[in-house]
């Protein structure tokens, strides 16, 4: 992980933007737009209640209203509360026993430290963030395709929170992890943030949809980190806040260079892979050179012995484009029979021999289809570009064509192309068969490539630098589908090859390994010199050498178009086609005199997002620290100090305790932005430890508990409910990370999908019993139990969940397959744990309430079990299962005091 110090040392220039066009607008009097200042904790009358300044702020407010804080919650209650709050799970019996037995004055603090150190802490708190960034694992719309490797982002959030990553880094990496110097794989994974939203693969207006997606990104980023309703200014000036439309478009500029999502994962080098690869490559290079030198020596010796004459039936050169003979419009075949045409600006540069052809991505040549049966194509290539596609999918037509006859669809075509990370691949169609090289040929050096195809056997082989990279058997048909061949671009268009090609030669049969080696070594006489080396031990050695593989990771991450980003313009009424005036890149003026950072472009991107992240996370940003302090508070107390935690503007709520909020925001900064430290600070306060019991005076004076005179009781979240059911019956699987799981869904739910048979996956019972954060989030098919308990809708940022009570929840919890199966597992556990119905029921009560069973509660269930046996002919086992169903439906189980 990147340390804080490293991030601070980034080579990004801080500069104060001179108000070029106009003075920057201020946010006026509104509280949120004022600079952050640390308030003094107020004096209070009952100082004994004050454990931390938090309590002083809260108590001062209560005393002012003539109110008193509720008494401290009992030990069972506080343990249950804090365990759910910090891990999303109930305390275990051992944890309860240990806490009750611990008489030390810091027994509670020890519990807090234990919980914060638990890896389950990150699992719980990650979900809060995932709601805000609208984490889902599919795109929505017609195909609702899975987002590849999106779960790595979810795991990144869990890990970051568990590692207590400073909030600055937490934000910076998500917004611009890829732009950090020496970005790690994890830094790239964090930028999966940009790929979480809805995406229509078949939009009616592609440009407009691209901007709808960008709007989702900009709006979510602004709400998540700054709590401003940025999206409201897309089409017109903000109705309430001083946020003009042009500020929106200035802000959007930070994201406009992002390459549109295309369902594709990215493949990047694994951490340390480059070093490993380079070391292996160095060894390989030495070995390879030794073999070549030896071959060369043998070849010259033999050639000299035979007076330089080669022997054997040489293959015929069908066409040859050597780069020396080309004009601005024509690519000339040496023999003059098969001249090609130049499209774009193919230029000549000094090549491997004489001149070579240079392609800049937009340029290409067309030549006639010179071969179709048995053939070889041989050429030299040089590039330092990564190539198109990704190295997990090395089918030749995914890359940028070097020499290519690719036609979309399964047809009789062929080609040689350049794929991500400098892989060379080649293949034939119908059926699609391909061979590919190792990665890393994008080293800016010349490499010889030969692709051979024998029509009779169907054999295909690819050679790089005289060594076979792979062989396979493909089609035996004539490869006639392409009318002509393309050099420098894959046939279906798109991005072309960037680099140089030289000595492109077609032969009328598949060359032998020796012939290819002779070409690669540039032996005098070319292929004819093959005889001189054929059968030598040096050639055998060379053919046995294998280039090292490049270790990679596939992930979902952001990518930009390149270093140069477009200047932002206003899009009138939010319509992408209605181009308004150009605006400078920038952040909302209402947030004060902003210290802006000039983007420092990296090799692949504009550096704009890193500049934005730096601005968001500067200590004097007025919003950031209040916003995160408020979110932390919100998820401990059930509501933020500002209830609208995504909107601190005039459309949002005012803070109930503005001074406390500012004090907490300053604490975030003072505690090196450690969120765990903030959790500890908050949950050890007297304010947090109050009972949820009501008193008449409190209810009369402050029914909404604006003043925090008691702790607000809350319903467990959807995830907590499901996880707690699994915890109660002892089947909860705490395994973390990896691809999502598929708990079994009722057929009736699967039938609502447009492809009922393939809508959902299948997990083993053990996997299906993992925590709910790992349940697949499919936009068109929400998991019904979690959805009915108000799991966030993922199409837009969800700062605060609903917590509804509705009959459909009752139906699923009483009649549903899941609830009934879990009740059975619960009963089985009780029978394993203890003997005798009464003891089993008492134990069951303890497992759902985390407190000793009350006698009358046990008696009630014993009576129920007896009735079920006597009146309904149930066995004791069946009766216990039904009692367990009751336990799982208890309010005491579902609510947290």
């Amino acid at each position, binding site marked *: 992980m990147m340390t804080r110090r490293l991030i601070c040392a980034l080579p990004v220039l801080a500069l104060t933007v001179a108000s070029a066009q106009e003075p920057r607008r201020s946010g006026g009097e509104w509280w949120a737009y004022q600079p952050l200042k640390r308030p003094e904790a107020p004096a209070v009358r009952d100082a004994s209640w004050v454990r931390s300044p938090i309590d002083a702020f809260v108590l001062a407010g209560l005393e002012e209203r003539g109110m008193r804080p509720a008494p401290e919650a009992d030990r069972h209650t506080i343990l249950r509360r804090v365990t759910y709050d910090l891990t999303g799970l109930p305390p275990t019996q051992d944890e309860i026993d240990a806490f009750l037995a611990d008489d030390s004055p810091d027994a509670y603090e020890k519990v807090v430290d234990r919980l914060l150190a638990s890896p389950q802490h990150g699992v719980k708190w990650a979900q809060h963030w995932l709601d805000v960034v609208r984490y889902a694992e599919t795109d929505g719309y017609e195909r609702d395709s899975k987002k590849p490797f999106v779960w790595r982002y979810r795991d990144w959030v869990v890990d970051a929170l568990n590692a207590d990553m400073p909030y600055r880094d937490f934000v910076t990496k998500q917004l611009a992890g890829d732009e950090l110097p020496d970005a790690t794989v994890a830094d790239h994974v964090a930028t999966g943030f940009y790929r979480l939203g809805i995406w229509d693969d078949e939009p009616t207006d592609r440009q407009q949809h691209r901007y709808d997606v960008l709007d989702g990104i900009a709006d979510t980023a602004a709400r998540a980190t700054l709590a401003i309703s940025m999206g409201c200014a897309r089409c017109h000036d903000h109705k309430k806040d001083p946020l003009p439309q042009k500020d929106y478009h200035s802000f959007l500029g930070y994201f406009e260079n992002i390459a549109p999502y295309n369902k594709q994962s990215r493949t990047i080098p694994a951490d340390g892979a480059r070093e490993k690869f380079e070391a292996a490559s160095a060894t390989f290079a030495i070995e390879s050179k030794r073999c070549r030198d030896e071959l060369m020596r043998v070849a010259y010796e033999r050639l000299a012995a035979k007076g330089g004459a080669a022997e054997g039936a040489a293959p015929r050169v069908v066409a040859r484009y050597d780069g020396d003979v080309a004009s601005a419009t024509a690519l000339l075949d040496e023999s003059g029979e098969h001249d090609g045409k130049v499209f774009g600006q193919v230029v000549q540069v000094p090549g491997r021999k004489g001149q070579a052809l240079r392609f800049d991505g937009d340029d290409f040549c067309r030549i006639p289809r010179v071969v179709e049966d048995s053939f070889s194509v041989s050429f030299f290539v040089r590039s330092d570009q990564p190539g198109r596609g990704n190295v997990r999918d090395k089918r030749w037509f995914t890359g940028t064509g070097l020499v290519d006859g690719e036609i979309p669809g399964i047809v009789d075509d062929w080609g040689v192309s350049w794929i991500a990370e400098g892989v060379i691949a080649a293949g034939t169609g119908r059926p699609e068969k391909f061979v590919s090289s190792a990665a890393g040929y994008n080293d800016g050096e010349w490499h010889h490539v030969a692709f051979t195809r024998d029509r009779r056997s169907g054999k295909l082989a690819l050679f790089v630098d005289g060594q076979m990279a792979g062989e396979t058997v493909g089609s035996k048909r004539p490869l006639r589908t392409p009318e002509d061949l393309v050099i420098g671009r894959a046939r279906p268009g798109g991005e072309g090859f960037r680099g140089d090609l030289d000595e492109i030669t077609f032969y009328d049969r598949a060359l032998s390994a020796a012939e290819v080696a002779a070409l690669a070594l540039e032996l005098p006489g070319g292929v004819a010199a093959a005889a001189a080396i054929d059968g030598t031990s040096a050639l055998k050695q060379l053919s046995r050498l294998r280039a090292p593989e490049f270790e990679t990771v596939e992930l979902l991450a952001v990518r930009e178009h390149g270093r140069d980003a477009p200047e932002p313009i206003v899009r009138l009424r939010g319509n992408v086609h209605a181009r308004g005036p150009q605006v400078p890149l920038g952040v909302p003026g209402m947030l004060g005199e902003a210290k802006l950072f000039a983007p420092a472009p990296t090799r692949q991107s504009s550096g704009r997002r890193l500049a934005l992240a730096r601005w968001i996370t500067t200590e004097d940003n007025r919003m950031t620290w209040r916003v995160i302090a408020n979110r932390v508070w919100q998820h401990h107390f059930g509501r933020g100090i500002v209830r609208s935690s995504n909107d601190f503007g005039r459309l*949002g709520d005012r803070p109930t305790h503005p001074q406390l909020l500012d004090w907490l925001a300053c604490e975030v900064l003072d505690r090196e932005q450690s969120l765990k430290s903030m959790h500890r600070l908050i949950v050890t306060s007297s304010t947090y430890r109050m009972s949820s019991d009501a008193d008449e005076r409190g209810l009369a004076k402050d029914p909404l508990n604006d003043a925090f005179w008691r702790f607000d009781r809350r319903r467990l979240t959807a995830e907590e409910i499901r996880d707690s059911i699994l915890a109660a019956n002892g089947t909860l699987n705490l395994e973390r990370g990896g691809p999502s799981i598929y708990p079994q869904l009722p057929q009736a739910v699967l039938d609502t999908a447009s492809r009922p048979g393939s809508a959902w996956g299948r997990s083993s019972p053990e996997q299906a019993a993992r925590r709910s954060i790992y349940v697949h989030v499919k936009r068109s098919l929400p998991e019904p139990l979690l*959805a009915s308990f108000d799991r966030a809708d993922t199409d837009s940022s969800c700062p605060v969940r609903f917590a509804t009570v509705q009959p459909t929840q009752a139906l699923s919890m009483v009649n549903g397959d899941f609830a009934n199966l879990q009740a059975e597992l619960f009963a089985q556990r009780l029978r394993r744990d203890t003997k005798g119905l009464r003891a089993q029921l008492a134990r069951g009560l303890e497992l759902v309430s985390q407190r000793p069973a009350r006698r009358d509660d046990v008696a009630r*269930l014993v009576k129920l079990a007896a009735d079920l046996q006597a009146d309904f002919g149930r066995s004791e086992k069946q009766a216990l299962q039904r009692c367990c169903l009751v336990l799982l439906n208890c309010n005491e189980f579902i609510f947290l005091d």
Partner: protein
Amino acid sequence: MNPRNMFCGRTRREFLWQAGGGFTSLGLVDMLSRDGFFSGSRPSDDPNAGPLAPKPPHHAPKAKACIFLFMYGGPSHVDTFDYKPKLYPLDGKTIDIQTKGRGGSKSKGRVVGPKWKFSQYGESGRWISDLFPHVGRYVDDMAFIHSMYADSPLHGSAMLMMNSGRILSGAPCLGSWVNYGLGTENQNLPGFVVMLDKTGGPISGAKNWHSGYMPAVYQGTVLRPTGEPILDLDVPNGMSDREQRRILDALREQNEAHLSHRSEDTTLAARIQSYELAYRMQSHAPEAIDIANESASTKTLYGLDDPRTEDFGRKCLLARRMVERGVRFVQVYSGGNHNDHNWDAHGDLEHNHSKHAGATDKPIAALLADLKQRGLLDETIVVWGGEFGRQPTAEYAQGTGRDHNSAGFTMWMAGGGIKKGVALGKTDELGNAAVERPLHVKELHATILHQMGLDPNRLSFFHAGLDQKLVGVEPVKPIRELIA
């Protein structure tokens, strides 16, 4: 706190959301905390009401319920209800024509002449094709909009547009808005039900009946015409109703004991109450789908005796039963899954439309007849249509398949205070685009809301800093010409 805003010691907003069967989030309060949160809609005045309690409309409604017959996939208007005589002789000819569909934008196309004959029906003399002879009999009760247009000619976004008013995913559906705005008269049934095709849901699945940024309580409930009508409605295998009652009684006692120390907490009380509501739903919903007592002639009328029409017929009959029982919004899908499982006739138009019209013509006519004879048609709007129509030209070099067309298509409505026997708007003479009185999907939505007593420009839900509306930011007028 100003006592004016208090209800029995609670604020109005807390009250609305916490009261029996209602919402319980204190966190939620942030979204409700501005005065006038509900200004656009109608909170119930009943202090014990839940979120689905009946709420007074904005104005006197013409319609109490809406049945939306969704012809998923996009039926061809020029082969059904939009008579284009000039199209027949052009069959097979390639003409200059601007189209935009799945295959992108084109400026030429091979005309596919309508594959069915049109005849005039009723006193109004409207032209209807041979695909809908039964429906044709009720033409004098219907109002056609021949000039519909939508923002997208592609299923994914077009479905969202027709159901939620936007091509971007995440907004509540028309049924959710009705549910939110009016509540339901029958607490024992959902206020918004959806019946899907037996081949599967439409693309985007639940998004088509989702409540988007509203609470899930407003989303559509999938109702199955046979077996367990609603998910988890059936008592588990082997458990009798009496046994379950005994279990629920024990649960209630348990929860009441818990409540006794927390008596101020209406949420806990609401949750106790929710089990009683669920229990009542268990007995009412099966009754609602039990058609055993329907007369033989009714069953025949809906085509339940014919395997072609049995499925859709049963759903139409259930739609009537739902409306009778106070359900506000019923959506019935004709077509599901992909390709020829729905009206998406890209390949063989004749095969596709014969199949789907054949399955729906008689049931739809029966629904109109049945509603009418029971006096329900006057207070129920029936809406027919798909997410778009189809092009007059062929999609491929061969075959009769037509590509999507959102530039002009036909929908019709009947009942619920909609004018009878009228037609509004026109497409060009080839049926390619709306040319006279073009009407957007939003105007259709506005009309439905208006007929149900809701002002489309006032019905709002505060989300993400905006009073969100079904019809969007700009005011939209109901289609006056269609309102009786």
